[in-house]
């Protein structure tokens, strides 16, 4: 029934759609995720329990969602864009009201069967909403100040809520994704330059009034890890030691001393890339980075190949989101930027992130499958 309903809305038959799915892309995704499985197996000292097995189950579940999403006609996504965004926003507010606190931040909402992190959901719905907005907007109005306001509001609302949790990393991520959509929608360079200048001004103000002491401390610690060698600086220092000591060929699978002796914090989540680099060396790390680059290349290809602005902007936004994940995580563990809690997509242990990423790839695949299809500009809910 579901599949029929989905396929009915499009011009392609279900079989056609399955044929159109890029299986090579799925293989690439699986290859990247497999690095994660291997490292989680190693992190548990050669055991599928507790991480690798659950991660595989989630990956399987996520692939299912991906495939289902891929078959959905983009017109449905277009229609769902605003309601989905609204739903995610409501959840973020719910977190404010009845969220679960963990590690000093209120980020989760307990739905009984799952600890949902609404900010993860927002990463996709924000992209959907902005893509829809610019899909509908005339090109010559993109740089009109009045028409910029709704787009900025789409971004500002969730960012403000996420900042309150507080989750600086996710807020920045949402901002950058949102701004990059506006950029790709064709905003005039004048605004971009002006906005850049405004940010430069805003940074000291934000530093003074919006950052919590611990967030400021993180930045200080980043600038000088020896400030707090056993605290926050410890993570950075130990990560560099583990990664650097891996050398070109690594210490061998399951042979990483630093990670296995717990010198490496959070080895199965945020710092999994360090463990991989320690055990598999420069070669392993570069291989994974190459796979990520290929995946991002494919995403850009899909974006440029889409025949409607909605698809282009949505896929590009998903791509930016994905890139930011990879970049922030890897740059963080290598000591290039301060430590912010961002997982390595598809590899780090974690439920919400994995499902959201794969769901996003489902949207992407849906655009790819239906790439030759026209998308009406009217007929939306808005």
């Amino acid at each position: 029934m579901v599949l029929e309903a989905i396929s009915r809305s499009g011009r392609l038959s279900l079989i056609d759609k399955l044929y159109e799915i890029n299986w090579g892309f799925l293989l690439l995704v699986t290859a990247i995720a497999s690095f994660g499985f291997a490292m989680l197996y190693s992190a548990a000292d050669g055991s599928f329990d507790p991480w690798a097995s659950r991660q595989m189950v989630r990956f399987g579940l996520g692939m299912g969602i991906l495939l289902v999403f891929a078959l959905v006609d983009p017109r449905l996504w277009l229609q769902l864009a605003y309601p989905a965004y609204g739903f995610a926003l409501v959840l973020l507010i719910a977190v404010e009201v009845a969220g679960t606190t963990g590690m000093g931040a209120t980020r989760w909402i307990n739905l009984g069967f799952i600890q949902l992190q609404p900010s993860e959901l927002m990463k996709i719905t924000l992209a959907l909403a902005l893509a829809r907005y610019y899909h509908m907007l005339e090109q010559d109005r993109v740089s009109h100040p009045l028409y910029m306001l709704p787009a900025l509001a789409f971004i500002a609302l969730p960012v403000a809520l996420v900042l309150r949790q507080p989750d600086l990393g996710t807020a920045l991520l949402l901002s950058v994704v949102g701004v990059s959509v506006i950029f790709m929608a064709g905003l005039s360079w004048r605004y971009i330059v002006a906005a850049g200048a405004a940010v430069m001004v805003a940074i000291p103000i934000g530093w003074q009034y919006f950052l919590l002491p611990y967030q400021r401390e993180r930045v200080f610690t980043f600038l000088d890890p020896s400030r707090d060698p056993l605290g926050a600086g410890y993570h950075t220092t130990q990560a560099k030691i583990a990664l650097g000591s891996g050398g070109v060929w690594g210490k061998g699978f399951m042979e990483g001393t630093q990670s296995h002796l717990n010198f490496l914090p959070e080895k199965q989540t945020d710092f999994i890339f360090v463990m991989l680099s320690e055990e598999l060396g420069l070669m392993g790390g570069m291989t994974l980075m190459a796979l990520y680059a290929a995946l991002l290349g494919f995403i850009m290809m899909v974006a440029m190949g889409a025949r409607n602005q909605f698809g282009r902007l949505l896929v590009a936004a998903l791509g930016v989101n994905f890139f930011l994940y990879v970049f922030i995580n890897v740059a963080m563990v290598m000591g290039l930027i301060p430590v912010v809690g961002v997982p390595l997509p598809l590899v780090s242990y974690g439920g919400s992130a994995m499902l959201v990423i794969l769901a996003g790839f489902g949207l992407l695949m849906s655009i790819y499958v239906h790439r030759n299809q026209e998308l009406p500009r009217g007929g939306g809910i808005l």
Partner: protein
Amino acid sequence: MALDDRDADKQKLFSRRAAILGGGQLALFAVLAGRMYYLQVIESQQYEILAEENRVNVRLLPPLRGEVVDRFGKKLATNRQNFRVVLIPEQTDDVEATLDKLSDIIPITERTRKRILKDVSQKRGFVPLTVAENLEWEDFAEINIHTPDLPGLQPEVGDTRHYPYGEDLAHVVGYVAAVSDSDLEGANDPLLQLPGFRVGRSGVERLLESELRGRAGNSRVEVNAFGRVIRELAKVPGTPGDEVVLTLDMDIQRFATERVRGESASVVVMDVHSGELVAIVSAPGFDPNLFNVGLSQAEWDGLTNNELNPLVNKTLAGQYPPGSTYKMIVALAALEAGAMTPQRLVNCGGKVTLGSHDFHCWKRGGHGPVNMVQAIQQSCNVYFYELSKRVGIDKIEEMSRRFGLGDQVAMDMAGEKPGLVPSRGWKRATTGIPWQQGETLNAAIGQGYLLTTPVQLATMSARFANGGKAVRPWLVRSVGGRARPAPQAVPMGIAPENMEVIQRGMDAVVNIPGGTAFRSRLPLEGLAMAGKTGTALVRRISREERARGVTQNEDLPWRFRDHALFVGYGPVANPRYAISVIVDHGGGGSAAAAPVAKDVMTRVLTRDPMALAAYEQSVHGRDVTDLGDGVAKGRG
């Protein structure tokens, strides 16, 4: 179509922007790759070292301290298993309850309990804390049996220094004790930093500390981020300390110790040819094992306040006037100087008057005419007064020094005092007053300024016995299997016939009726001892005391009584061993010191069951009254 056109514009614009974005992403990826290359290739070695430092902890393994054995290999200082119990706090939920249970087996003081609870709150849960050490085997076994009920407690076996002979050897072998701050100064041996490590504090333990200590081994262990040991990677066992072989014969040492038990005394037995110390007893001793564990205040007070001075090694640091044992030096000085012939008689009328002062013989009525051998035999003071007047203090001083008096003679032993041999120059320098002839007379009978140590007296005796070879006492035969060459005994250049006179005198003292030590002659067929008794004045009996009826030395309080001395050697026919005995405040040398020398020498010369029987008999049939010595000063 219009829509398509507009979309074509959009697509064109998008593609440009997407290219910029993609380029940006690529550039940032390049940064990541560059950083990865930097860390993993260029800086890799540095991080490898850091990683290894992170991971590997080196733990010191204390080496086994070298053993000290006597000449026959009897263990004098050895290592004993130290049964102890450690607590690993993280293995128990309730430290107090565990300690309560343990206190059912062994006592746990309130102080220990407080210390442990403090450590528990301050240290990481897996760091073992010592709860009790040096446990008896029975207690240790019981704790082992009860380990299942004692969560967190772990019985362990370590090594601790042990002195099987306890106080019999405390002064010779010494003891070990905890490292002090001054030990750490300038020392770079990491072992010293080890908690519970012990270093030699006195005796051989201190003298040969570096040889006995050995070199630390190490165990490289892998630790995790919390410092918990995961596994041992490599183990380099330490190099045990060198074995030290002493010249001592523990049998003699013990026998002599036993013989003077209850007294404050010293006994030195040495080989007259090699200088090897066979026994070196300073009594009473103390239990060196206590120092290893740490003394309680009461134990320490008991040792320091003891009138018998158990902490002082009297053989090396005890300085006594030699009394009549010095008379051979005066006699030999006179013979060598040609100031006297052995046959010449001196009439002893009981005293000699010099100026307005009378110098008495110990025998009130006098000895009558005596020659040199008789003078030595009977320890006639008047003869030696006369002798000293003829030879003068300068020659006597010179002869003293040739026999090792007034200077440190012992090899490889610490804490030896030099004693004092007075001279004209010394007196002027110290008192500003010129030498008086009366002082020469005093010196002639071993009184006055003269001070000697038991080791010096034994050495002097050995040099008489061996015919005038300058042997020096030494104690360490070999270290780590490497022999320490005996110091060369250089001939002293004394005329053999003169030396023979002295030897005949010493022989007569013990073996001819009328000799002051005749009652202490050896009960052995064919083995005779020669010697000389001495009594060192501690305090003259005052006029008031005499008025109160205190006429004899025995009437004085113990600490004012005279020291009893004896020096000797045996066998007379072919001297092998020299001996010196000093019984502090023992009274007369013939009564208190010579019998000790007789028993010890008997043991030395026989070391067989027969000698033991003879010893038993002599102990039980021993005459306690003193006939030979009695009156004021200079008795012999």
